[in-house]
């Protein structure tokens, strides 16, 4: 064992442990504390003293207990076997822990993140000798039917490949290549380690021009996020943060999804574990679990490991990005992470800033969200990490520090609204408060899919919603009856948009996921109702008659009745709608001219 004695426990305050007699500890070094070998990390060094944050319950830990250093920073293991796995905040495999210690997580147990026994078929992509640079693909392992796990030269390892192993079965510990570098020979195994608090390098950042399609109409159409973008979803309890995160984990068109359950419910992780294997990825036809990695540090698990969990998650995401994949990271909830930071900081007796949070909260948030991005990888591929963080503001009040600071580092804001959630309008994304700064970036992509109409349709409906908000002020004072039909049409169209488009039932087999084409046609149908309907009203038609058109039943039900492939059916609804409105308009116009004649 490389462990060395680095000091003794001096004081224990919950997850924060002070040690003295420190000789050669390193900052951020991974350490083992006491006879139970509790895992911890050195977070402060001063003279012969040091502070450790411990990732396990410290009950029973006594002053005087020995602390051993591992010589390495807190790192994750990266290699075949990650996909489909569930880990705690410091990447301990939870299914393996359950095998070892039963249904409850006890302390002092450790198991390697990656299975040491399992053999993977490695196929080399190079022939030795040849020159490589860090990030180069040395070979591949077909990890799942659709996921090619690329074995990369670790960043920083450049030189001449003197040996590469032939196709065959290897464990993650086996050496598959040898590289002569300037600083000596490096053996490359099927797995590598990377410190979680340090972003993995890439060649350059690229502009974000493609949306990450989520299949959620309100998000894709009104407040899109670009691949490589960063989003925050704030909302009070029960407004639907987790449902949004899970809908994205299920349906977004990323290659890999890293879902971090950070200080939230155990049952929600169980829900993902039971649902995902049964759900089919619409793009690959395979189980969704085959592209998903779960980090579960639930609210009752140790708080220091919660702090580490988002770094563990994003480091795994970067590893897959470096293979050339588009990765989506969901962190539910970053507020619980921030609270862990606050708790640890408080126990270390640091000076608090706003609401007890440490002054470095904003810096840490920035560091996390900056790890999202569209990049060119070291091996020259375009790849991305899109980060979607949930925020749980106390009392649902967005003016609190975590929401406010996060807003500075993201460009899409999906505000969840209590009123909408109470009325069971789901997803309860507020169309007034939310925004996306990626609209211009992704307009080109959407334009190609929609005969160039996307931007106009989107602006059209947004202006209806804005006019509705203004009219509602009037209605609240005098009722809707006094408004002329042309204005009541605004209310009517907005209502239709809310019911038939914005609301999306996550539990409905058809409605749960709405494809790009379907979104476009649905939007067009509703905008047509408004614009053509407006013309008809100008030509004398009444709102009541518009409302009574037979086709409106189909418009109301289209989200449930038309599958994503049912383009023809949606097109026929659109044609019938146009025809019905025109007929109405003609009838009324004729009546009017009869009267005037």
């Amino acid at each position, binding site marked *: 064992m490389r462990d060395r004695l680095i000091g003794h426990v*001096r004081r224990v305050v919950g997850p924060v442990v002070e040690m003295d007699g420190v000789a050669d500890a390193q900052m951020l070094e991974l350490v083992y504390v006491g006879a139970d070998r509790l895992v911890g990390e050195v977070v402060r060094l001063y003279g012969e003293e040091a502070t450790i944050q411990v990732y396990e319950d410290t009950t029973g830990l006594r002053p005087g207990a020995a602390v051993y250093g591992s010589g390495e920073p807190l790192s994750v293991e990266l290699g075949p076997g990650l996909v489909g796995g569930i880990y705690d905040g410091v990447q301990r495999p939870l299914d393996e822990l359950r095998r070892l210690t039963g249904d409850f997580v006890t302390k002092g147990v450790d198991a390697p993140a990656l299975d040491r026994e399992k053999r993977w078929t490695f196929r080399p992509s190079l022939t030795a000798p040849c020159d490589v640079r860090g990030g180069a693909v040395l070979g591949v392992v077909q990890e799942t039917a659709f996921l090619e796990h690329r074995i990369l030269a670790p960043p920083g390892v450049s030189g001449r490949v003197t040996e590469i192993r032939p196709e065959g079965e290897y464990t993650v510990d086996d050496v598959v290549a040898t590289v002569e570098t300037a600083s000596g020979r490096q053996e490359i195994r099927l797995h590598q380690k990377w410190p979680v608090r340090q972003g993995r390098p890439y060649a350059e950042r690229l502009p974000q021009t493609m949306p990450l399609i989520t299949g959620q109409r309100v998000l894709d159409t009104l407040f899109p996020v670009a691949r490589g973008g960063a989003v925050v979803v704030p909302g009070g309890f029960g407004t639907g943060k987790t449902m949004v995160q899970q809908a994205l984990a299920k349906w977004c068109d990323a290659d890999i999804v890293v879902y971090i359950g950070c200080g939230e419910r155990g*049952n929600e992780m169980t829900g993902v574990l039971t649902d995902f294997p049964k759900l089919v990825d619409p793009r690959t036809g395979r189980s969704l679990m085959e592209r998903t990695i779960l980090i579960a540090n639930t609210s009752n698990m140790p708080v220091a490991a919660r702090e580490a969990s988002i770094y563990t998650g994003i480091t795994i995401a970067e590893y897959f990005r470096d293979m050339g994949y588009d990765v989506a990271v969901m962190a539910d909830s970053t507020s619980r992470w921030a609270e862990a930071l*606050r708790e640890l900081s408080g126990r270390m007796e640091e000076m608090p800033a706003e609401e007890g949070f440490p002054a470095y909260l904003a810096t840490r948030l920035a560091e996390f969200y900056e790890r999202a991005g569209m990049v060119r990888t070291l091996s020259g591929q375009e790849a991305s990490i899109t980060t979607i963080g949930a925020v749980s503001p106390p009392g649902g009040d967005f003016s609190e520090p975590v929401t406010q600071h996060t807003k500075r580092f993201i460009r899409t804001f999906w505000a969840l609204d209590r009123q909408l959630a109470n009325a069971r309008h789901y997803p309860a994304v507020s169309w007034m408060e939310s925004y996306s700064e990626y609209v211009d970036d992704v307009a080109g992509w959407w334009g190609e899919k929609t005969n160039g109409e996307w931007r106009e349709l989107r602006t059209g409906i947004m202006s209806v919603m804005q006019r509705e908000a203004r009219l509602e002020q009037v*209605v*609240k004072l005098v009722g809707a*009856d006094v408004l002329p039909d042309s204005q009541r049409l605004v209310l009517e169209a907005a209502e239709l948009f809310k019911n038939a488009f914005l609301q999306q039932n996550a539990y409905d087999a058809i409605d749960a996921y709405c494809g790009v084409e379907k979104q476009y046609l649905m939007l067009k149908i509703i905008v047509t109702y408004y614009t053509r309907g407006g013309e008809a009203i100008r030509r004398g038609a009444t709102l009541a008659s518009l409302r009574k058109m037979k086709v409106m039943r189909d418009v109301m039900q289209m989200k449930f009745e038309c599958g994503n492939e049912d383009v023809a059916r949606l097109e026929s609804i659109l044609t019938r709608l146009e025809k019905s409105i025109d007929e109405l308009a003609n009838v009324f116009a004729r009546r009017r001219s009869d009267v005037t004649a």
Partner: protein
Amino acid sequence: MSSQTYSLDVGPTSPLNDREYVGLRELSGPILAVEGIHDVGYNELVEVTDGQGRVRLGMTLEVSRGAAVVQVFEGTAGLRLSDTRVRFRGEPLSVTTSLEILGRVFDGLGRPIDGGPEPVGEQRDVNGLPVNPTARDFPRKFIQTGISAIDGMNTLVRGQKLPIFSGSGLPHRLLVSQITRQAKIVGEDAPFAVVFAGMGIKHDEAMFYLRTFEESGAMQRVAAFLSLADAPSVERLITPRAALTVAEYLAFDAGMHVLVLLTDMTNYCEAVREISTQRQGIPSRKGYPGYLYSDLASIYERAGMLTGRPGSITQVPVVTMPNDDISHPVPDLSGYITEGQIVLERDLHQRGVYPPIAGLPSLSRLMKDGIGEGMTRADHAHLASQLFAGYAKVKEIRALASVIGEEELTPLDNRYLQFGEAFEREFLSQRIDEDRTIEQTLALGWKALSVLPREELHRITEEEYRTYHEQGA
């Protein structure tokens, strides 16, 4: 252990024997500090004996070389620095777990107060251990409470944690006792138990609950832990944990379905705040410590089911909202952890509606998994969704009517107002001894909806309308 390396501070504390010391350095609120000790662990159980020989229990909150900070559950009144003895037990606080605890009443720390003998059984750490998320079994079994507002709109399932958010003077007691009396799984006769934790509640309130259990003939299946209002408040920190440790035994070792009633979590949180303030912790909101969320989670997350084990723990905590404010830290943080909430509304209560369960802010997050074909009925989800939507509209129209006057409302608006009346009077309202079947509840829902025209029922399918509308009308 190399104890010779310690630099022992010479304090007023002197050792009596290996684990016992006499003399304190400091007393402050429910907290004491001792010096000159060694080999004491974090979160360790402590016995504090005063000059008269009375023993109180405590726990270490902080340990360092030669010193420890201890919170005393039974308060520090009457303790002196000079002659208080402190014994470190080398283990965390534990509680007896066995079937013998059923039918018994304990104090807030798990000691019998009903005159009966000390129960015999395995001692278990009250803090429990976090459940491995891979070991959980997702809750999806419908519990019929016989209360329409719950069964129909905010369905409770086995293994769920569903709190009641109440206010002072609102009838949460009646509701909790009605749930306790009526809750059952239709067509199943599995062993069940009730574990009751009373925190900071008054004597007569505790008696009310105990009487309820007795009257329903269930007292032999109840274990009660009482930390009453006049007990030292820090004791409450242990009460829910002791209760849940016993519940875990009953559920996961003895295979029972356990209903855990925790009342009142607001009192519990006040004790947490008291300790934190004493220790000069940095407050977050309203003086509550930043770790209140994690602390509450360590209680609420002990509900659930485990795969391959027959029992379950269903929690119904009571949270009173100070000033009826749902954004107060205690209900707020609770709502972030529990799987929904049943909110009681003063306005309904004042209009004589029992149970006054608020239509919109109430929510059961696990409802969808427990209802539908084969569990309740195929139309349940759509019916509930339509009732919610309709009632939301009622609220809007009532607000409008209060501005423009009822005369100015459209005929449709008036239909909605009628629906609101019918919903509150016939669906929501029921007697405290009225135990409705789920079929009765659903029929009442359809009846309320029958006031509205078909075109308004967007969330109901044609087929459902054809099948059930008749029944309601």
